[in-house]
């Protein structure tokens, strides 16, 4: 009695490629996030340093992490859609 999905899911030939891309993008974002945590732990005084447009590192990095997640989401979707359209054509 395995638990099947609520709706029928078609076979996705692009699944493996998309998963690989997902892992790569996850690692990239994690490194940026880890950088933020690392500065907070090892050089917390850097967080107050002015960086761009008179804003300090804490603000630029914090806002940057939020905006980066949104931008990477759109990029990921673009490539995944492209892969799906190409590989699931037939």
């Amino acid at each position: 009695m395995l638990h099947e999905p609520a709706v029928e899911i078609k076979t996705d030939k692009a699944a493996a490629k998309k998963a690989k891309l997902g892992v790569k993008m996850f690692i990239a974002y994690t490194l940026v996030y880890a950088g933020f945590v690392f500065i907070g732990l090892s050089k917390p005084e850097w967080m107050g340093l002015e960086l761009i447009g008179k804003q300090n590192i804490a603000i630029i990095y914090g806002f940057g992490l939020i905006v980066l997640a949104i931008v990477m989401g759109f990029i990921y979707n673009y490539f995944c859609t492209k892969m799906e359209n190409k590989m699931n054509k037939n």
Partner: protein
Amino acid sequence: MIYEVSNWAIAIFLFIVGLVLGLSFYFARKTKSSSGYYAAGGHIHWAVNGIAFAGDYLSAASFLGICGMIAFSGYDGFLYSIGYLAGWVVALFLVAEPLKKLGKYTFTDALDAKFDSKHIKLAASISTLIVSVFYLIPQMVGAGDLVVPLLGLPHWIGVVIVGSIVIFIVATAGMTSTTYVQFIKGALLVIFSTILTIYILQNGLSLKPNKNHHTFTQIEALVTNDTVVSVPDSSFVVKNTKVVNNLVLVKLAKDNIDGWYKLNVKDNQATLDEMLYITVLSNGEKLYNGAPKSERKFYQVGHLSKIIVDGKEVDKTGPVGPFEFIKAIESSEIIRFSKIAFPEGEDKITAWYQNPTPGENIMKPGLLYKLTKASGATLWDKLNFLSLMLALFLGTSALPHILIRYYTVPSQRAARKSTIVGIAAIGFFYILTLYMGLGSMINGTLDVESSNMSAPLLARTFGIGLFSIISAIAFATVLGTVSGLIIASSGAIAHDFIDKYLRVEMSDKSKVRAGKFAALGVGLFAITLGILFKGMNVSFLVGLAFAVAASANLPAILFLLFWKKTTAKGIAWSIIVGIVSSIGIILFSPTMYDKYGLLPKSAPIPLDNPGIISIPLAVLTLVIVSLMTQKDNLTKKQSI
């Protein structure tokens, strides 16, 4: 704090509640099957689902808790915004599509899809229930906090109202009505938070933020051997002096009314600064600034003591841009209110003293989480910070009430697209939390008794209309999230445990009925907890729910998807170890010791956030047990 009730607020509140109940009636007629009840039939459009993700995720913790935490502790509150959003990256890149492919109605379905294991069903359904209940508590606390100023009702009535409405929403139409409630609420929350932020920027910074702002008294004092001996103003009489945590606190009387003041000595000049204080008398009666609550002597606080723009000191700035606002606060000085508690005879005093804080300290981490040597940060303080950031990052994609939203859309592509819509809406909202929190901090709107009310009270300074709408949306925020949590809990009990684990024979109609009864039970339990946990910051409590989810569920999900040697027993044991270790650390943490009335320093585990220990422990358990039970996988393959 005493709040004035407005008819507008009541009318808008009733409109929102009516809308939600109307939706539930409408969809109730269409919900006949268990697929419809638990997964909205799997036919929700990805864009609607994306905004519903925002409605589900942006809970009381995000709106009330984070804004409150920023208002009281500056940038440290914003760390929650960053972490909560970053967690969606894990959901999008690793979890969304595979989970959609594996599951049916619940998180347990997905974990169990490859194994059909009783161990997984039991462990995952328990985990879903525990995480959802941990998450439910702060939502209910937030609901209670909201009705006090909105409707002028006691905290517990707010909890009961939310509980009852949500039980109705879930028990009538399940996931379909829950989805549309979350969709409407998510959209309204983002739109009106944007409007509130525009008001904040238009208002700018001012030394006198609003006409009702109380100007705190400062009196000259004569001091000998660090003790106040007299005040030149003869209308004051010195009644008592106390030294608490190296602070000299003085009780003065004027016209037979007592007041507590804090001694400040600067450039050989001694002054006494007025404090806010609550006295709990030996008979249990509470006095606010020496008088009963109804006399309204307890003020809203939080203001700027110095405004510096481009190196010049000014009284106000006028309208400012978003980055200009942040920079102006960073250059200025803000009066925060810090809490201190001490006994006076048989009375218990809780006081809040003025704590002038440079803006540069507000705009970087450190006020709540000690990180620098100068602030006396220890290794445990740093581990606490690391642990929090880890749990926030890994917790999102392990929350059962978020994961079940993947089963409401028709395809994996739709699951991905809805996640991206969710990330965009949630990310934008989290940027606004910084403005709403800082706006509350400097506009004289803070209620020192409840950090959760910062954003709605800020809205009130811009007009009762905006306050009414924001409060009603905040209430809808609680409704949306609690509905999702109760659906997830109901699925864990009725679908995972009764139907799949106990294998009780039921028709599809009976399964839906069982789900509705489970929703009723969880709802009543949530009401009780919401009343018991009154007064805690909701974002802190949600942070703990994230830690439990990240420890109990995420290792299981990720290893199932990415490690072929994972076994059913490995998953089940990892969930159990994750739950036990994370909750165990929380129960023995300094914050909980404080709640028990014990000294926080005497807590055996000096960590408030358990993730740094419990997540690796769960991973280790999964790997070891899986390697020890490889035979199970071989047997399964052979039987297939």
